[in-house]
């Protein structure tokens, strides 16, 4: 079996300039989504009320109206409340919030962006911690070495 030429790393498909351009586009998309959410959300709290994960928060909130402003604060890059950060930390993308939102805000996207921001991923200081697993990708590579042939490793990964 010969290596598929399209799999070779070429300047066309992975150049630094291209990555930079796409990185800028991704940030622009996230920024526009944040602006859309901030202007559309009425802070009614319905998204929180239907969330099946809210009960697992380390700082449970009493109601949605009190916790959602803290999520919006995170999106603005401001310091948030323990209740909002606790809710953001337990979001596992159930998506129950999406049909519950009367303004079609897409609270699942709101929470995803809030999580990225609170973790420090969007150029604002981190407000929640994520345990980094230094072996994450090496573990995957090891399982691949245990289960795939040399030829499969070369061609498929």
């Amino acid at each position, binding site marked *: 079996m010969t290596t*598929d030429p*399209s*799999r070779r790393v070429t300047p066309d498909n992975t150049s630094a300039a291209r990555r930079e351009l796409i990185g800028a586009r991704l940030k622009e998309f996230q920024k526009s989504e944040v602006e859309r959410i901030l202007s559309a959300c009425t802070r009614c709290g319905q998204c929180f009320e239907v969330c099946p994960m809210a009960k697992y928060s380390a700082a449970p909130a009493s109601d949605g109206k009190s916790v959602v402003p803290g999520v919006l604060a995170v999106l603005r890059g401001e310091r948030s409340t323990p209740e909002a950060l606790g809710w953001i930390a*337990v979001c*596992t993308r*159930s998506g*129950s919030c*999406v049909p519950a939102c009367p303004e079609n805000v897409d609270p699942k996207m709101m929470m995803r962006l809030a999580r990225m921001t609170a973790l420090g991923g969007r150029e604002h200081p981190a407000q929640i911690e*994520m345990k980094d697993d230094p072996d994450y990708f090496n573990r995957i590579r090891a399982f691949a*070495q245990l289960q795939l042939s040399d030829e499969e490793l070369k061609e498929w990964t």
Partner: protein
Amino acid sequence: MERITFWYGCNVLRHGDIIHSCLDILRSLGFDATPAGGPDYCCGTVKDGNQTTAGGMASRTVGRFNAMKRERVVAWCPSCHSHMHDFMEHANDRHFGMTYFVQLLYECRERLRAFLTHPVPMRIVMHQHVGFQDLVPVNRMVPELLAMIPGVDVADCGYVAPGYMCASFAALPKALHDIHANTAASVKSAGADAVVTIFHQCYRELCGLDAADVTPVYNYVHLIARSMGLAYEDEYKAWKRAGANAADLIGPQRLERIGIEFYERAILPELKKRPKLTSSS
């Protein structure tokens, strides 16, 4: 013959049998399928805390798929599929169609039915999550696919777990414990022989229930493969069940490939991990 890329993702590399079975299924259905996955094809979703890195990973992966010039990419992993939909495609020029693996099987279900010839006598409950259904209604599609297998009886199960897959709960032990306990209870109340997962991330977590003899656990691809007469060994489950003795099954040659120190530090704890449930729970 449609030329597709089978984007299996990263963590399913724990389950070589699932990857091999999926490829055989795709090729039996008449697709010219080329597999691609592993960290070099990461979607970037694991890098929520660093969007510069996440964006770089996404652009590299989309660039590689564009260069492969195949009509569509068929994703196995729900995280990759949703990350492509939610973020990657808004920043990248994608030159291929995207389909989720279950969607493709569902699309081809009449062709698939002809290959499901070996009976798999088993009453099952599905392990389902609330999420991901807006993208692909897998909670409806997978039971329909499994019901085509002679002998499979899909029991009604009242329990649907929160989130979209179990691996997200690794840092939420109380929630994961609830999922394990409710899953075990649903198998018992349905009088089922086994629980069947849709996603590999759930299979990996629930394999602990199998290893602890709470209930047998399968992924839906295991049942389809068995009915098609495919016979790839589920080594991950065997290693998980062996726990501390998994090295005996893996063997010295393969252990040497990854290094004993790495195996003991990074692999063995996962294989030994068991849910805090008993068979009587």
